[in-house]
């Protein structure tokens, strides 16, 4: 039997002509009552917040688009984007290394993940920031004190921003490596066999067959990582980088409007998270193609229930 799209009223359409038995949909009076109560509670809480003078909404509005805040938000976005990109690429490499049949290669990856997940990010950030104290001159050369070429003073090369990017990216790579390893592991062995039987090997096999299928498993936790990263970048304020949160802090340190400025920062974080979640959903749909049982291109009729 063909399913009829359910209209927004939440009612089952009247019986199809010819069907002799009337269908009475199950009603949920308790659920409905509960929903009404919850909506009322939420609305009243919001109302209280909105009319409470002590939130200083006027201050919130006046700082929402302050240049310092906008620059901070931009910097937070850049830190997140760069660190996530490097983290994902390096994480993929580490995941593939970790799965390698070569025990030395997989041990190196294991060691990396162990170290970077096992030490606090804050410590790593401060370490990179102070690298000049340990290695005044950065150079490329042969190991064990062989000849080398100096590429510059660490003090000049490692600015607070590079230290922040290094710390965030290298740390993120360790987490992404584990997420991607899980994704690769979730792909059926038969897919490797089929691809190899068709003459694919190495990179083609990974990029065309395995990783696209791993994406389905990798994307949801990666979305979490991006959002944690977005907020986690506020740690870089220890390196005196004015990201979004730090910019807000600088302002309230002088005008003492702590809560309004934290609200300003939070609104921006919320906006960025919302946009990122939107893209995450799009990507999840893109990489879910061919896996969901539902036919493609047919939009699920929106039902009005339980909103």
């Amino acid at each position, binding site marked *: 039997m063909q399913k009829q799209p359910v209209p927004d009223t939440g009612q089952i359409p009247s019986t199809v002509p010819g069907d002799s038995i009337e269908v009475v949909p199950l009603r949920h009076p308790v659920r409905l009552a509960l929903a009404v109560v919850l909506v009322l509670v939420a609305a009243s809480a919001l109302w209280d917040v909105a009319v409470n003078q002590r939130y200083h909404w006027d201050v919130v509005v006046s700082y929402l688009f302050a240049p310092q805040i906008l620059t901070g938000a931009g910097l937070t976005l850049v830190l997140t984007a760069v660190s996530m990109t490097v983290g994902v690429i390096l994480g993929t490499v580490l995941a593939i290394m970790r799965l390698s049949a070569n025990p030395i290669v997989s041990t190196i990856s294991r060691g990396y993940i162990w170290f970077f997940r096992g030490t606090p990010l804050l410590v790593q950030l401060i370490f990179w920031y102070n690298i000049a104290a340990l290695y005044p001159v950065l150079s490329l050369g042969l190991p064990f004190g062989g000849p080398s070429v100096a590429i510059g003073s660490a003090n000049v090369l490692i600015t607070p921003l590079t230290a922040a990017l290094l710390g965030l990216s290298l740390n993120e790579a360790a987490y992404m490596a584990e997420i991607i390893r899980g994704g690769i592991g979730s792909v059926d062995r038969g897919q490797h066999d089929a691809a190899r*039987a068709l003459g694919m090997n190495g990179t083609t096999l990974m990029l065309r067959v395995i990783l696209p299928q791993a994406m389905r498993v990798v994307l949801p936790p990666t979305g979490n990582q991006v959002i944690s990263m977005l907020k986690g970048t506020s740690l870089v304020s220890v390196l005196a980088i004015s990201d979004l949160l730090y910019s807000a802090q600088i302002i309230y340190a002088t005008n003492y409007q702590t809560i309004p400025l934290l609200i300003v920062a939070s609104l921006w974080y919320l906006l960025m998270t919302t946009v990122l979640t939107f893209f995450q959903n799009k990507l999840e749909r893109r990489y879910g193609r061919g896996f969901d049982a539902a036919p493609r291109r047919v939009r699920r009729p929106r039902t009005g229930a339980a909103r």
Partner: protein
Amino acid sequence: MSGAMVEALGVRKSFGSTEILKGIDLTVERGSVTSLIGPSGSGKTTFLRCINHLEKVDAGRLSVDGQTVGYEERGGRLHEMKERQTARQRLNAGMVFQRFNLFPHMTVLENIVEAPTRVLRRPRDEVSAEAQVLLDRVGLGNRGHSYPQELSGGQQQRIAIARALAMKPKLMLFDEPTSALDPELVGEVLDVMKSLAEAGMTMVVVTHELGFARQVCDQVVFMDGGVVVESGAPADVLDAPKEERTQAFLSKVL
């Protein structure tokens, strides 16, 4: 090139300390169809995977189209091939799996076009046109834009056959191509395989479909415990088996 398509001489293969293939001797002539039968666990899949170098042979000689699989003869010695070379060599044979193993994230057409364009680096339009011909040939000309998930098992397996054929292999290997199918879908896959055999393709088929073996195959090979127990024309092996183990197996299957 003359000689047989597949020649196996004392092929051995172990996983860890258990020896699975204990010296397989087998010849598959060009243009012939061979069916491999035998109880589960007798090493049929493993042997098929060795032919395609999805598994490495430990000892003995295995050659496809006159070339030793996985090794290169230089200066009277066999040198193990590099991964890139084995990938090339794998192109001699197309393989069809019990569980189809289509790429679920690609449409039917993308499944077929992927390897010829990426591995053989052939132009996409040319390959697409050929893919359409292959789809018509397996009776699925109008399903090119479906995803594998949307097709029945029988349809998926026919696509898998088309995907393997798109690489223009000299030899087709089938590992129980119909055993994951609902009974009413078995026929459509066997029909495609029959027409392939009629077109002169060399085929090695692991199967429990003795009707197919009898009707289509030139040679039936009965394996048990990692060795070839008996082989010969279908009429001989299936209807008048000499070996006790063959008789016991056939009495259970029939």
